[in-house]
């Protein structure tokens, strides 16, 4: 795949034959280097794992008893003469781009990333390289993110309105990443933050690793409706339309995701309100990141691979789409 075969694209994922290492492998392997802890990147069953120190506790919590080593951002690890290092991807806490270099050739695998600083995850840093493997989840020019301050104001307004109408506000976001971003970003005026147990568990893992997070109250049977109405509930997307919510009616569902930029997606998700807040780069972000690497070869993965590649080729870059097994997961 790359000039000298430093990385190859296999059925198990990106593979470095020289070091016998896989990056975010899809199936169990001997040595796995992980960009971050989301389920489509960190899979169970490999013999050994390497990730950043801030990403490690949640990955351990999710994958259980695994053989996990950490490597701080910016430090090098040599495996059979190949150098590996992590560089902040700005996607979620501890998320990294993985830099692979050997005999002067540098390849960077972006993992998932966003270029805007969310004030919580380690901010994205561009890394110069010859070959850049970029994600393209939102690789279409229709995706432009607003400043997150604007989105949080919109959330505040919405929560207040619902409360005035006697409706309970529920915000849906992934327990790893989006939930922390919502929690840290919501203005204090929305009142106490109540959490679903899945989210509280991840928050507690992070608190135990010394990350400073706002106070939350796990939803429990002692809380009255009036208690809950004084604040906001944060829940994982899977909970929407489940029995867990029945007892809270009347409620309003606010889905927090980059996909909410499209009306079709809002309807599909049955959202009363869609908040466009993403942990992935938007169109400008992707283009900016790609250009900052100075790479002459671009591989486009995870998302609108064909379209972004063609656009990059139009701009004179050497770009190729790279299909993954997990596109099915992202469209949900």
């Amino acid at each position, binding site marked *: 795949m790359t000039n000298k075969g430093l990385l190859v694209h296999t059925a198990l994922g990106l593979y470095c034959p020289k070091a016998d290492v896989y990056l975010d492998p899809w199936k169990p392997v001997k040595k796995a280097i992980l960009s971050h802890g989301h389920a489509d990147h960190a899979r169970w069953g490999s013999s050994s794992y390497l990730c950043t120190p801030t990403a490690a506790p949640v990955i351990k919590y999710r994958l259980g008893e695994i053989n996990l080593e950490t490597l701080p951002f910016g430090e090098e690890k040599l495996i059979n003469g190949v150098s590996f290092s992590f560089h902040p991807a700005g996607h979620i806490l501890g998320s990294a781009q993985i830099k692979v270099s050997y005999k002067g050739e540098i390849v960077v695998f972006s993992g998932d990333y966003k270029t805007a600083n969310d004030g919580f995850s380690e901010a994205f840093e561009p890394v110069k390289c010859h070959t850049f493997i970029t994600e393209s989840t939102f690789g*279409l*020019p*229709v*995706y*432009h993110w607003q400043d997150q301050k604007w989105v949080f104001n919109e959330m505040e307004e919405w929560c207040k309105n619902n409360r005035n109408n006697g409706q309970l506000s529920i915000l849906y976001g992934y327990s790893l990443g989006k939930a922390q971003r919502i929690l840290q970003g919501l203005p204090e005026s929305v009142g106490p933050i109540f959490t679903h147990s899945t989210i509280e568990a991840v928050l507690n893992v992070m608190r135990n690793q010394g990350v400073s997070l706002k106070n939350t109250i796990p939803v429990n049977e002692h809380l009255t409706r009036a208690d809950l109405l004084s604040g906001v509930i944060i829940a994982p997307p899977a909970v929407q339309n489940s029995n867990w919510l029945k007892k809270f009616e009347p409620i309003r569902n606010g889905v927090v995701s980059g996909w909410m*930029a*499209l*009306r*079709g*997606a809002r*309807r*599909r998700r049955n959202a*009363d*309100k869609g908040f466009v807040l993403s942990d992935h780069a938007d169109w400008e972000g992707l283009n900016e990141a790609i250009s900052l690497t100075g790479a002459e070869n671009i591989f486009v993965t995870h998302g*609108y691979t*064909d*379209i972004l590649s*063609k*656009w990059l080729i*139009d701009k004179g870059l050497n770009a190729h789409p790279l*299909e993954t*097994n997990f*596109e*099915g997961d*992202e*469209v*949900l």
Partner: protein
Amino acid sequence: MPILWKQISKGMRYFETLFLSLEETTKTNEKVSALIDYLSSVPDEDKMWMIGIFSGRRPKRTVSTKNLRRWAAEKAAIPLWLFEESYHIVGDLSETIALLLPPPAIEVQKSLNDWIQLILSLDKMEEDKQREIVFDAWDSLNTSSRFIFNKLITGGFRVGVSQKLMAKALAEFTHIDPSDIALKLMGEWSPLTYSFKSLIENEENEGSHSRPYPFHLAYSINEVTDLKGEPADWVAEYKWDGIRGQAIFRYGHYFLWSRGEELITDKFPEFEHLSSVIPPGTVLDGEILPFKDGLILPFQHIQTRVTRKKITSAILKVNPVVFRVYDLLEWEGKDIRTKPFIERRTLLDQLFTSIDSTLPLQLSPVLPFAEFDELKILREASSENGSEGLMLKNKHSTYSAGRKKGEWWKWKIDPFTVDAILIYAQSGHGRRANLYTDFTFAVYSQEGDLLPFTKAYSGLTDKEFIEINQWIKKNTLERFGPVRKVTAELVFEIAFEGIQESKRHKSGIALRFPRMVRWRKDKVIAEANTLEDLQLLLKKSR
């Protein structure tokens, strides 16, 4: 409620808010209250445009969508192919444009009417000048207002405001009876020719002579056991597959309306001389059917009648029609919709005793039955009589606007099905963007060629679509833009309502309402149906 100047200055924002709230809720009460909020906040012209837009009376299109696409790509500084790809994924032209454009320079607030007048002023203007005005508008609107502006230009508001809902909101707002409002909203009017006062608030207006009644519609049933009451409470008729029409005879004039509220009088000149036999003050509800030598012809014959701009005598000869009547809504100048169905039908039968049988006007027969079970036999025989099932009407029901459970039921014959092979996949629009959901299916010909014969979109679950999507990615043979050619391997059961000859398709066959009913994982392609099977079906259905 008095209108405040401050509110008016907010202009189109009200319409935007209304549009978004209508889209965000499925609850009737919330929709009605959003409509009333809007009506209470805007001047009369904006009220009229809202009613017009949501009842399909959009302003005339003054700019071609082709130009809009070109200009949007130019303004967004992207190549046209990227615009088209984005459009394909977003699924809505107005939304795509709104999202692609750079942020506005300064936001300008104008009323809905002002924006529409601006759009209307583009008519017959030179292209460069049009482009300049559209660019200016885009530059002065934020993303969501731009979306509305683009919708106003392209006219594609497809939001759920039924006639009934609109009438309900207007009735609450004006304190006029909802059925009066529903009647006023029917027929040919436009926000350019009528003011809110003249259309809604006035007792009578000039257009009222041609005005049709809102159509009463039927719900579907699957089992005859779903019928309530005794067999004697019900009337059975055949269900005809033509164009639903309402023929109006008033003051010596004749008008014919389609269910889509289009005046189609001119498309069917053979009915014109009926006004000499039907007394004035009569309104008939029935089906326009292609009919020759005592037989009902395939539906395609009537399609040419509606699609052609000019109806020549040749077309009349090749595609003759009849109006098969099943209800009487107005008699001796009086609205009799509140009379029970059986009384209306008796009056209709009386009217037909004096109608010459050579006229293109027929009575849809009532099918006698004593027990509900007999309906099954009638239904099975319905296709032999050129119909697509049965209509079951409650004898005591009134003719209300729209659908009402328990009054009229349609009981269609089971659809045809074939097992076909998936050969092309294309990603979906809107709700299904990012997923391959538009499939083309083929069958083998006697010569062993795989011939595509139909497309189908709906019918599978999201879970199945995801599974098929992963399969498609692994089994792509070729790509043409958004379309992928895949290995001929998967078999699907396709259901459809009718089959016709078609010169446009290589297979020589066209289906009506095809959809996927099942992914036949149990079948290999050799077990799928063949072109021969389809040709046999075609022969049988004639």
